[in-house]
């Protein structure tokens, strides 16, 4: 459906992605493609134990390996005060372990060598003596009186990190007590990992002559890295340049600062050479930011007719050994209190207890940085549990409870104000397209023959675009984002942003926004991101915030350019500025539209013939502080058939009808949806990082941590409705997260629906064949 770029770009065109020719021809320039003169390699020694005292580290065998130049330990870093670093969540984290280790694969020492192979050999040769300590794996036992205390470095001698509440607990309890019907369900969202194709890595290059540090790093948020580095390494911030080259997928894993980066910086300072460190897949899965691991208990109170009244959620959050999630300061559970979803609840209350365990830290990656996936899964699953209790069609239950279109902007009992929405229209479009009523009839026939067919619905609401500065910051940095546009004399433009794309298509979509605001072809707008020396300050790309925040900055920055160009146009048209109108991509004289100049004319004049008294040039910068979040939504429907012999679930159909407001490029939106649905499918059916009782990671490579191929992946059907955001400069809402946020519940609802004749109300993810087989067995189903 892609078309060639026309002369004048219009929002909503399926322009081919400008970045694709280099990516699909293998000409992207990723971190590991960069080789600097004199570059050394670093490899990390990691703990085989989940919890152990560090008795002794012997560097000598490693130093004896040919090519090994240095071995760095936590004690070495302690001398520099760098053995701990702050996390983006206000906790602190060990850089290299001192005293003890708290999870398997924790960073213990670093080996710097002349070649990658020598660094490996050296890391294998370091001898570390451990004294094993009791391991805490199950978050549900973290607060038991006998539980081992993990973080004895903290003042608070408990494994509880924090307790957080949202909503009115008294009002919710009262409403729950009065409800005619209540349902209660435990729901676990397993620990999983985004595992982008490119693992994490960096090259730290401290130039001794200039005293300047350049850090090439796989980062979704290069400016945040620069500031954190300045704070951690106590280097002057102007002496740090962070470059995030082409990024091979991020999904939130590349937001936080990892110990390896800090050690590589130290190694470069110590050796005087550039030092490259690139993780293996095992290091990536075993130590970088995991996702989810939320143990949730949900209760809904409703009338017998199915009108929901109260929602209560208790959550136990397993954060691993350090609270290193990148969440806004005031929102330790992110945006989890979006969990009232698309429904009109009178009362709601949520609390979250976060605990430490002997597992790697993280918690907020995988195409949703702020716990919205957990919230959406919870409410969509709970609505189906309620429907089962009421013996009501889950579609009808949803229809009864949607927030009506006329009540937007709508404020939830947990405090969010949804900008816009038309849930019934989106919902009915989806159910119509999939043929819901026919599917239910088919299901009745199949059930009569003993076949297991299920239909699952998710009618989710997302919250993206963090965030308004009044409430949102990371380490005090307000969550605005920025754009800088330079229009050159020949009418071509360079646009730079504080965000950093990792496949989202910014080089195309932001060119479309800027181009359409300035009357320039998208091909004439070069988009650049990722270099802190050139890009304006910004918080980065995650949480579907690029379009809502940086996209807003792009439009408003372009309008700032247009304001100045208008003065130039008046000069060129020899009329007053108030007589100039912007129409059809040109400045025209009011009342004489044939008298017009283009943006190209104005750009040339800005450098060759500026109006007297006007500053020459045509450039602008804009820092956009969004007035509110945006609230994309959608209806997803899954149709599944279960093989009663093996427990295999076949996803026969999957339809996603998204509403992400005004669409900039429908092809890119479809691509985002396809990718996110594939991830949601993987999460629902195959992905989990389990740990054994000793804290050993049981999914530390692609043999055990499963990423679906084209063979497993269902065919995706997509469609859209469009409800613009009333406050966003171009009405766009963001879309990247929606398919990952919205789809797991559709898959699980479909599978539970298929099993519902057996009396099944819930099955936890991942829905492996074995898990389904076990449910079938427990209910007496044996087949061949």
């Amino acid at each position: 459906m892609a078309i060639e770029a026309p002369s004048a770009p219009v929002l909503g065109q399926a322009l081919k992605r400008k970045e694709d020719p280099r990516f699909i021809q293998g000409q992207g320039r990723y971190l590991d493609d960069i080789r600097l003169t004199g570059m050394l390699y670093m490899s990390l020694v990691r703990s085989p134990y989940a919890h152990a005292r560090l008795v002794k580290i012997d560097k000598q065998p490693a130093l004896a390996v040919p090519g090994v130049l240095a071995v760095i330990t936590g004690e070495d870093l302690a001398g520099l005060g760098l053995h701990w670093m702050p996390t983006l969540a206000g906790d602190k984290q060990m850089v290299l372990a001192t005293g003890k280790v708290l999870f398997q694969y924790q960073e213990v020492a670093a080996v710097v060598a002349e070649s990658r192979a020598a660094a490996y050999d050296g890391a294998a040769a370091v001898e570390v003596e451990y004294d094993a300590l009791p391991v805490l794996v199950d978050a549900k036992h973290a607060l038991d009186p006998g539980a081992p205390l993990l973080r004895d470095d903290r003042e608070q001698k408990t494994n509880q990190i924090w307790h957080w509440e949202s909503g009115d607990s008294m009002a919710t309890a009262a409403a729950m007590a009065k409800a005619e019907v209540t349902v209660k369900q435990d729901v676990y969202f397993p620990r999983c990992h985004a595992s982008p194709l490119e693992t994490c890595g960096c090259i730290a290059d401290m130039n001794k002559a200039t005293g300047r540090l350049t850090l090439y790093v796989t980062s979704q948020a290069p400016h945040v890295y620069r500031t954190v580095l300045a704070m951690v390494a106590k280097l002057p911030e102007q002496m740090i340049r962070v470059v995030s080259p082409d990024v091979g997928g991020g999904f939130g894993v590349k937001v936080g600062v990892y110990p390896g980066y800090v050690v590589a910086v130290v190694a470069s300072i110590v050796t005087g050479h550039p030092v490259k460190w690139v993780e293996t897949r095992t290091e990536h899965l075993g130590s970088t930011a995991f996702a989810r691991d939320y143990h949730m208990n949900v209760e809904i109170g409703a009338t017998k007719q199915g009108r929901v009244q109260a929602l209560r959620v208790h959550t136990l959050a397993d954060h691993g050994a350090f609270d290193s999630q990148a969440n806004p300061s005031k929102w330790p559970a992110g945006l989890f209190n979006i969990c009232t979803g698309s429904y009109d609840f009178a009362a709601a209350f949520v609390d979250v207890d976060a605990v430490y365990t002997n597992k790697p830290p993280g918690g907020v990656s995988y195409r949703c940085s702020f716990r919205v996936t957990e919230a959406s899964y919870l409410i969509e699953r709970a609505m189906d549990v309620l429907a089962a209790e009421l013996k009501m069609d889950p579609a009808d239950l949803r229809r009864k409870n949607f927030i009506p279109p006329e009540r937007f902007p709508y404020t939830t009992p947990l405090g969010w104000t949804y900008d816009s929405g038309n849930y019934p229209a989106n919902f009915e479009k989806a159910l119509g397209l999939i043929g819901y009523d026919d599917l239910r009839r088919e299901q009745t026939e199949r059930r009569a023959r003993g076949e297991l067919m299920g239909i699952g619905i998710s009618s989710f609401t997302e919250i993206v675009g963090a965030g308004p500065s009044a409430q949102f910051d990371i380490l005090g940095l307000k969550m605005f984002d920025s754009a800088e546009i330079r229009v050159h004399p020949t009418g071509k433009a360079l646009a730079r942003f504080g965000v950093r794309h990792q496949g989202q298509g910014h080089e195309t979509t932001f060119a479309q926004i800027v181009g359409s605001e300035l009357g320039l072809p998208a091909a004439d707008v070069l988009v650049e991101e990722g270099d802190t020396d050139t890009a304006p300050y910004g918080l980065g790309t995650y949480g579907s915030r690029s379009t809502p925040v940086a996209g807003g900055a792009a439009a408003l920055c372009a309008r700032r350019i247009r304001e100045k160009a208008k003065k130039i146009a008046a000069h060129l048209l020899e009329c007053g500025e108030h007589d100039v109108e912007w129409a059809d991509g040109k400045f025209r004289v009011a009342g004489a539209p044939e008298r017009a100049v283009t943006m190209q004319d104005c750009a040339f004049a800005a450098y060759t013939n500026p109006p007297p008294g006007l500053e020459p040039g045509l450039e602008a910068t804009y820092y956009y502080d969004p007035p509110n979040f945006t609230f994309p939504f959608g209806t997803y429907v899954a149709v599944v058939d279960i093989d009663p012999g093996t427990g295999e679930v076949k996803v026969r159909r999957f339809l996603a009808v998204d509403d992400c407001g005004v669409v900039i490029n429908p092809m890119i939106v479809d691509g985002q949806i396809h990718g996110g649905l594939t991830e949601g499918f993987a999460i629902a059916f195959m992905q989990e990082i389990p740990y054994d009782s000793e804290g050993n990671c049981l999914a530390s490579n692609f043999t055990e941590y499963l990423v679906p191929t084209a063979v497993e992946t269902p065919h995706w059907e997509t469609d859209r409705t469009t409800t613009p955001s009333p406050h966003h400069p171009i009405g766009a809402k963001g879309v990247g997260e929606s398919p990952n946020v919205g789809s797991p519940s559709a898959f699980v609802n479909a599978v539970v629906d298929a099993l519902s004749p057996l009396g099944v109300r819930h099955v936890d993810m991942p829905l492996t064949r074995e898990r389904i087989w076990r449910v079938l067995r427990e209910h007496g189903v044996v087949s061949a």
Partner: protein
Amino acid sequence: MIPAAFEYAAPKTVAEAIALLRGADSGGKILAGGQSLVPMMRFRLAAPNLLIDITRIPELRIFKEESGYLRIGAMVTHGELERSAMVGERYPLLASTARVVADPIVRERGTICGSLVHADPAGDWGAALIAARAQAVVTGPAGERTMPLDDFLVDTFTTALGEDEILTEVRVPTPPALSGGNYQKIERKVGDFATAAVGVQLTLSEQGAVEAVGIGLCAAGPVSLRATAAEGMLIGKVLDDASITAAAAAAATQAEPTADTRGAIDYKRDMVRVLTSRALHAARAAIRA
């Protein structure tokens, strides 16, 4: 993910390869497709001193029917077999196996013989070729010896190969008339090892009774397993739902799967039952009139 240091040699003849193996003093490893060996080296689970690359030995590419056998040389890849029209027509068991080995990329490099030498009980070819009653052709300094595959596969990662021997060929009997075969596999995703898999090779008499049957079980014990009890129960019987159900149950009983992330023992054992039943049905359906 970087192997330990090793030497590399690329002989042009089998004799040269064997001489290199002898000279390596147990430290030599044959490299064919490298689809099991190289990952093991990258994880440093294998650290040979010398890699002997046999990809340039033309005689190991033999792949043809001769004297009642299909001869599959050591360098024949899964992909070649998968694309072979002759295999598709006359060896439905092999064709249905080749389609589900690993993933398409691995199939283009990996070899049938390499998979057998690796002797992973979760490898597909062990089970399929036991069902097919294949012969292993082993070449060493003293020449060639031939043995049933059942004897070649000794234990997990262990074969009957001597330190200076190479599996140069595997020979699959050309099925007589009224034969059919099928391979059934459950895997978590394409490219994963089998959770469970079953191969069946079947020949019926004119009267419809089972004249010959081979049933091989994958990932059902320390070594690729022949379901002897199930085979014995079926000989001389009419292949109907009752006999298939009974044979499937017997195969499940004989299976000795181990628990791992692919499933617990009871699940895997039951999958042997389900897949044996399905493979027998499909093998019968594959018989052409």
